[in-house]
Each structure stands twice: as structure tokens, then as C-alpha cells.
């Protein structure tokens, strides 16, 4: 039986996602203020309230829950990921299928000192988001090393 993945993401990921959630919530709030006025009184009160709810949930609930659920593990033969707020998704990528690995650092991510490791296969990519930068570099190098064994592709 394959063990469950054990590694967590960086703790600051929560703050990072909260900030993302705040940005999205604020955008929704502004939009609802602008649009709501044109749609009548009920909409003008309800839409901003909904946007505020999105903001609160996006900042206070989602990041913490998401972080608690995220697990990853790089084994010699595969990359194993498990995540999902409500729906639990488990993704396994055999090491022999990895074509290349990259570390992505967004502007916001740099503020928090986190990077995303993207693992590319012929069929697309999977991501380990929000790892501390040093850890991300290690993971990238480890996967690149392990994926070295060329395959007949």
C-alpha cells in the first residue's frame, strides 16, 4: 500500500493566500457596488453583502483549510500530491514521465518568500504551490535528478 504524502507547504502560504483572497474579495466588492446600483435596491444591498461574505471566507476560512489539507511528497519513483478544500484530490506522477521541472515565483510570492514548483509531463503539469524558496530549489533539483533516467520517449 502506498503511504499518504506527509510534507506540508510553507506556513506563510496561509498569509499569501489570504492576501490573494482579500484582493479577489475587494475586487468583487467594488464591482458589486458599481453594478448593484444599476440593478435596483435589492441587488444594491445584497450584492455587496455577498461580496463581503466572499471576502471574509476567502481571507479567514479558505487559506487555513487549504493549507491544512495540502500534503506532498517526492519519492524516488513518483511525485505524490493530496489537496482540496472539500473534494480531496490525489495526483501521482511517475518520475519516469517527468519532462522538466520549474520554479515559479510570482511578485506576491516573492514578498512572502515562497515559490511554486511546476512538474511538467507530456500530458500537462502539476504544481506544488507555496514552498519556501530554498525548499523549492531543493525539490526542483531532487526531481530533476530523479527524472534523469531517460525513458524511451
Amino acid at each position, binding site marked *: *500500500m*502506498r503511504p499518504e504524502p506527509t510534507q506540508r507547504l510553507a506556513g506563510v502560504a496561509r498569509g499569501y493566500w489570504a492576501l490573494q483572497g482579500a484582493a479577489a474579495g475587494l475586487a468583487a466588492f467594488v464591482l458589486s457596488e458599481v453594478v448593484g446600483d444599476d440593478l435596483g435596491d435589492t441587488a444594491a444591498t445584497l450584492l455587496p453583502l455577498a461580496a463581503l461574505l466572499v471576502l471574509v471566507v476567502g481571507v479567514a476560512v479558505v487559506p487555513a483549510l487549504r493549507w491544512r489539507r495540502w500534503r506532498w511528497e517526492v519519492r524516488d519513483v513518483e511525485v505524490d500530491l493530496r489537496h*482540496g478544500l*472539500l*473534494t*480531496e*484530490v*490525489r*495526483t*501521482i*506522477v*511517475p518520475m*519516469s*514521465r517527468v519532462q522538466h521541472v520549474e520554479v515559479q515565483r510570482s511578485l506576491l510570492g516573492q514578498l512572502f518568500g515562497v515559490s511554486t514548483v511546476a512538474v511538467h*509531463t*507530456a*500530458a*500537462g503539469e*502539476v504544481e506544488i504551490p507555496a514552498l519556501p524558496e530554498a525548499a523549492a530549489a531543493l525539490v526542483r533539483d531532487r526531481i530533476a535528478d530523479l527524472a534523469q533516467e531517460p525513458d*524511451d*520517449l
Partner: protein
Amino acid sequence: MTSEGPRRLHPSAAVVHALGALRELALPLLIGLVVGGSRSPASAIGWGLLGVVVALVLGILRWQGTTYRVDARSLHFRTGLLSPDETVVPLQRIHSVDESQGPIQRLFGVVALHVQTPGGGDDAEVELTAVGRADAVALRTRLGHPPAAAGAIAQRRLGLGALLVAAATAPQLGVLVPVVGAAAAMADDLLPRFGEDLLHDAQQPHEWLVAGAVLLGVALVLSFAGAIIAFSGFEVERDDERLRVRRGLLQRRAARVPVARVDGVQLVEGLLRRPFGLVTVRLEVAGLRGQAVAARTLFPLLRRRDVPAFLERFVPEVAGALEPDRRPPARARRRYLLPPLLVAGAVTAAILVAVPEAWPLALLPLPAALALALADLRAAGARLDGGLLLLRSRRGLARVTLLARRHRLQSLVTSQHPLQRRAGLAHFGVAVGSGAHLRVRHLDAAATAALRDAL
């Protein structure tokens, strides 16, 4: 054999090149035609003739400037009008030599030779556009790739009847409808009066129905013609380590796939084919990602009962049992049925409330949803046999069976939402190298985990 001097292609190459040049000249010519034609028809004809003459001269010059020569080590290919390029391909690096025949080549009884090297991608490294048959055999022998007839272990052609059936049941319909719609919109812009008339006439609902039927008819004809063009003369051949597929009416296309690179096959049973027990076999190969569906076809039309024998002959590597042995458990049944029925119920209610006079339409959603959900439930399943994974599911309106080599799967994905967790169910999906994903819904969670761990 000793080295010979450089040789020219068959003179009909000039015609092929001229047509190519004409294609490149088409846009400036069209502009000339429109500008000139608005003044007088004579000048339009003049422009047309000028284009043909220029193209012909270019074609002849190009034929004159193109030579090839084989010495003990390499193939030398020289082409170009002003600054000739010489390509040298070492004989050892030649991966395969393929023949193809376009309409011009067929007219003159010659062939085009494509010399492929590994890493050359889709385009041939060297393309000899017209070579006489005897020359082609001699050349291929000198290049170390004599004609393959002897090498083929298995070969199958698509007969005329099967081609017609394949075209009549072509699955591209869904894609074509918006295209025709867009064309109609464009025609509407170009012909405002026609558009207004149509709009005016189409006040009555049944007129809209007629317009819809016409669009559908055009889409059907286009789809039929498209399939005929794509699959005419379809031919698949297997030798020791390669599959070769040839097809096409106007342009003969040839594809070669080393069997070692085959991730698996997909059996696609479209809505119109399923009732007749007909199947399309597609090849899953990493290198073919993003290519047109036709390019990934291993065989356009087979009887379902012939599939095992076909796979056994052409790709024994992925031949195996075609029926899943892990199916959604009884408790998954209502999860297949309930959501589509709820959606259909909502649609029915919406129709009845919004447009009560269209009540006959409201009879459609529920039976359609029920049929779809039952088809979904019956299709779903998985099987693991040694090195071969089988997944069967519905994609769009087609039932799809994926037979994939276990060691060539790109990723495995299981997912489980809270309600599934309570019922002990989970989705199970895989991706293969071509980028295709297939997911089977609501399998037993323990069985899914076992499947995942076995892979």
C-alpha cells in the same frame, strides 16, 4: 555502388512547385483580381493569366535548381532559386523513407519521397517532390530503406463502403455547427438585404426551425465531405517496430509511429456508431499531442467484435480484455442518475414557466437526461490486467474505452468529495502522453485506492 552525378527530379515536379507558388501568390493575385476585376472582366482574366505564368516559370526554375545525389555516405539535396541550400543527410541517420502521392503525382504516375531523420519532427528533412517509380525503388534501396512491402506483418485498408459509413457517422458535427453559424453570420454581414429578408420571413417559429434545419444540413454535408477527404484510401500497416498510417483524398498524408512510443489506444463509440456496433480506434502517442483528431486515428471504422483481432494484429502490445471488471457499485447508481435528472427537471420547469406554449419541448429534457445517465452508468468501469489498464467512460456523447500501457501513464488522479467520502466512493482518472484524460466516476473507494497503488 559508386557515386553518380547529381540528378534532377521528375519534370512533373515543376507542376507541383508551380502549384505551390500559385498558392503563395494567391493572396496578391486575389487582390489584383478584385481591384482589376472591378474595372473590367478582361483585366481580371489578365491578372489570373499573369499569376499562372509567373507560377509556372517559378516552378520550372525551381525544378531546374533542385538536384539530389547519393554517395557512399550521404544523401545530398540541393534546392533553391537564388541561393541554393545543400542539405546533407548521412545515410546512417535516415530513420525512414516514405512515399506519398498527391493528385499531381498520381496524374503523372510518380511518387514523392520523404526522407525522415530522428528529431526531424513532423516535416521531412528532405522531400523529393516527384520521382519516377523505378527511380524511387532504386533510390530507396541505395538509402538503405527498400520498399516496405516485404517488411509489413499486417496491413488493412478502409474499403469504400466503410469509408461512406464512417463519413456518414462522422463525429465532427458538433464542432461544425458553430462554424456554419459563423459563416451564416458573415453572409448576413455581406448580404444585408438577404439577411433582412431572412429575418423578416423568420418571424414565425417554424421558419426558425427551417433555418435551423438548413444549417444542420450544411453542417452534415461539410462533415461528410471532411471525413471523406481525411479518410479516403486509409491504410494502416505494421512492420517489426513501426505503425504506418496513410490517408487522404487530395493530399496523401503518411504518419509513422514507432510502436515503442505508443502509450495506448482509445476506442471511441460515437452516438451514431454505437447502435451499429461500430468503433473508431485512436492511437495515444506522446508526440502527437495537439494534432488533429484525424492524425491520431489508427483506424476510422471497425466492427466492435473485430476490435480484439485488430489490436492483436496491429498493436498486440495493448491488446487485452475489453470489458471492465471493476464497475461502479450499486450504491453509486443514484449518484449517476440523480444530478442529471435534477438538472433536467429544473430545465423542464423553466420551459413550462417561461414559455408555456412551447410545452412539447418540455417533454425532451427528462428522457434525454435519463438516457444519458444510464449510458454513463453502463459505460463506467476499469480493469487492470498485468501491464494494461482499461478505463471506460463517456466523453461528450461518445463512449470511450482507453487501453493504456501501465508504465506509460503520465499521471493518476483520484478525487473524492465529502458526499462520496460518506458513501465510500471516488473518481479515478488518468492522463496519457497525448494529453488525453479519462475519468471514471463513482467507483468503490477501496477499489480505486487498490488500483492506484497497483499502478
